[in-house]
């Protein structure tokens, strides 16, 4: 059945994983808030806001709202950041989940728009994931709200929410794979060579790859197979486990060889929560979990 699987635990795992990764990101960038998001940071607000549309939220709005109260631009930036951290903590715990998701989504949007020139793939997925945390019933299990009986009615029913998230992730991988396949570098292995040799990504001494093009070609082709194949093979039970493991391995490789730990963690959360739970929690375990959860 399209909506026949238990849906609430994967959504809860999704919520906790997303909050965890974004909290780790917050900790990682906290020493450099002024440089990344400050009014006189590496890209000043007056310049960064040129590329924003008039309605797009930004820290500057908060600064202008708080200025009459004597709050500086730096104070406004800190307030938005602390709101983001606090809401992510609440989201991870599943406390006032929908409110926490709304605050996390708003503050993350303001931070991303303000520091837009520094936003990369993780920012894009954070934005999408927090939106889904807002509209999907991600706090109905494994949460403080569930324990205290304070879950609000679902905006999007859980079975629909799960299929929506799964379909979105499948589209992401299909699009990503097709984009890569359009050029020669992923077919001939040059993409792998170029990625691991860029100074910003180089984690290990891999110049020997120049003498082993079969290795880079194999890795490049494997990447295309995993990404393009995701949309087809993540759904059937017979191939789901294999594709979950392959996808996790792909992102572990990205983390280990390119140093993109947080991005990889987010991508692993997406597949592991939305597809991995169903793939590896066997029927007996699902019944036990369902019985425990009530």
């Amino acid at each position, binding site marked *: 059945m399209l909506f026949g699987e238990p849906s609430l635990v994967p959504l809860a795992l999704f919520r906790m994983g997303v909050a965890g990764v974004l909290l780790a990101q917050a900790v990682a*960038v906290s020493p450099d808030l002024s440089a990344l998001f400050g009014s006189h940071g590496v890209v000043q607000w007056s310049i960064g806001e040129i590329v924003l*549309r008039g309605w797009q939220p930004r820290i500057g709005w908060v600064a202008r709202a708080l200025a009459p109260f004597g709050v500086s631009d730096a104070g406004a930036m800190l307030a938005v950041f602390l709101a983001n951290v606090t809401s992510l903590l609440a989201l991870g715990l599943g406390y006032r989940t929908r409110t926490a998701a709304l605050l996390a989504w708003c503050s993350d949007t303001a931070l991303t728009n303000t520091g837009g*020139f520094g936003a990369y793939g993780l920012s894009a997925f954070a934005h999408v994931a927090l939106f889904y945390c807002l509209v999907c019933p991600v706090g109905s299990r494994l949460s403080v709200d569930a324990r205290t009986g304070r879950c609000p009615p679902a905006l999007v029913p859980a079975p629909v929410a799960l299929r929506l998230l799964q379909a979105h992730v499948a589209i992401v991988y299909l699009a*990503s794979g097709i984009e890569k396949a359009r050029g020669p570098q992923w077919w001939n292995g040059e993409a792998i060579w170029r*990625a691991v040799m860029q*100074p910003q990504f180089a984690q290990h001494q891999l110049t020997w790859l120049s003498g082993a093009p079969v290795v880079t070609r194999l890795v490049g082709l494997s990447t295309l197979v995993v990404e393009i194949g995701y949309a087809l093979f993540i759904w059937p039970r017979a191939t789901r486990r294999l594709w979950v493991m392959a996808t996790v391995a792909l992102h572990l490789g990205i983390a280990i060889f390119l140093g993109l730990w947080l991005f990889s963690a987010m991508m692993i959360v997406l597949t592991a929560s939305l597809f991995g739970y169903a793939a590896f929690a066997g029927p007996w375990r699902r019944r036990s979990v369902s019985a425990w959860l009530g």
Partner: protein
Amino acid sequence: MGSRRLRFAIGWALAHLIAVATAAAHLSLDSSKPPGNLVRAYGDLTGAANNYGFFAPAVASQIRARFLIAPAEGPSSVDTLEVRRPETDLRLNTMLSFFGVSEAQDLLARSWAATMFGKHPEAVTVTVVADTFMLPTMREYREGKRPQWVEFYRGVFARAARDRRPPVSSLP
């Protein structure tokens, strides 16, 4: 849950996925007028407007920026934006990648020069130098060719006269 609400949820989910798929395929309506601007706004708010061309179709060459700090007196020095913290440096390198867009170069260079003036109050001029990392192919590397940084932008920025601090020795 009522069937009407369920049907609405399914309808919205399908419409949302269509927005996701079309954006991922780089298909879009004219965003300068309705309904394209509304669709674009929805996409920006929800993340449905994203595309996912990571390292695609090719892996771009890294760009770096160096700043030559020239004080009124004494030798010049060189600084960079790096902070030696991985996540922040990743974001800074992402900012640097926009320097490859020619229309953005002077604007970003001005912004970075301002950062350097703030970091180096003694600076009278800051020269922004941008290089791109030219990596040979695997075959070229085997034949002895090696990576090198190649300069493609150089701009000199001077501190406004009203912002210049007097030399320390002249302070009471």
